[in-house]
């Protein structure tokens, strides 16, 4: 199964990367290339939307971890959204969920972002 990557810009959100298909050893380099091209220290937030991702292997996980590390390095936010159960299972097996901001859906993520914003406004 191929990988389809759609990247959209949002002044509020930063970059939204929507994945569809399979993120595996064959397609992971494709995602890494896109991230190298679109994500740099100037990007304050990356949202990865997994709603249409059917399959994930360790090769894909490595690209995801590298992206998180990149965002952490300039205090950017990295959020994961809409993981299908079988994809979530892969994260759970290697205990990768703890270090990540993972949201069930857009609504849950919006609540989190609003809460974060309020914290900033309240000087916390």
């Amino acid at each position, binding site marked *: 199964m191929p990988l389809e990557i759609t990247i959209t810009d949002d002044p509020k959100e930063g970059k939204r990367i929507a994945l569809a298909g399979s993120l595996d050893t064959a397609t992971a380099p494709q995602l890494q290339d896109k991230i190298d091209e679109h994500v740099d220290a100037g990007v304050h937030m990356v949202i990865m939307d997994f709603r249409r991702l059917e*399959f994930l292997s*360790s090769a894909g996980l*490595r690209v995801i971890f590298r992206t998180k590390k990149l965002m952490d390095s300039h205090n950017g936010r990295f959020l994961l959204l809409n993981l299908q159960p079988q994809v979530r299972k892969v994260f759970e097996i290697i*205990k990768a969920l703890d270090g990540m901001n993972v949201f069930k859906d857009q609504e849950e993520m919006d609540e989190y972002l609003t809460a974060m914003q309020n914290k900033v406004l309240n000087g916390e």
Partner: protein
Amino acid sequence: MRSISLAGDTAECGRLTDFVRQYLQEHAVATQELMYDLQLVIEEVLVNIIHHGYGNTTDDRIEVEIELHDNSLTLTFSDSASAFDPLAQKFDSADDHCDGGMGIELVKSLTDSQHYRRKRGRNILTLSKKL
């Protein structure tokens, strides 16, 4: 028991998965969840053998046997790379991006038993999964 010979190239993952799916469909046990797990196990094992065993894409081949017995599926991978036990790779946490470790952690979690032995110059990895 059925066997297939693969080229030492990760592009063969799809062919092996299709082979396994067909075998399981013939025995009417190919559920979506089972096939997802096996597709992942297959990729992680083949990538391990090719990158860590053989050192990269190779002309050498990988032989795979599949057998269903007593409601348990056994997959045996055999290759001619120098001695390499994929199960010996360590994985401490998701922070440890050691190439092979994460993949084998997934294999161990998605199968019920794993066994490596070296025999007549070949690495033999046997995995079994209860259906």
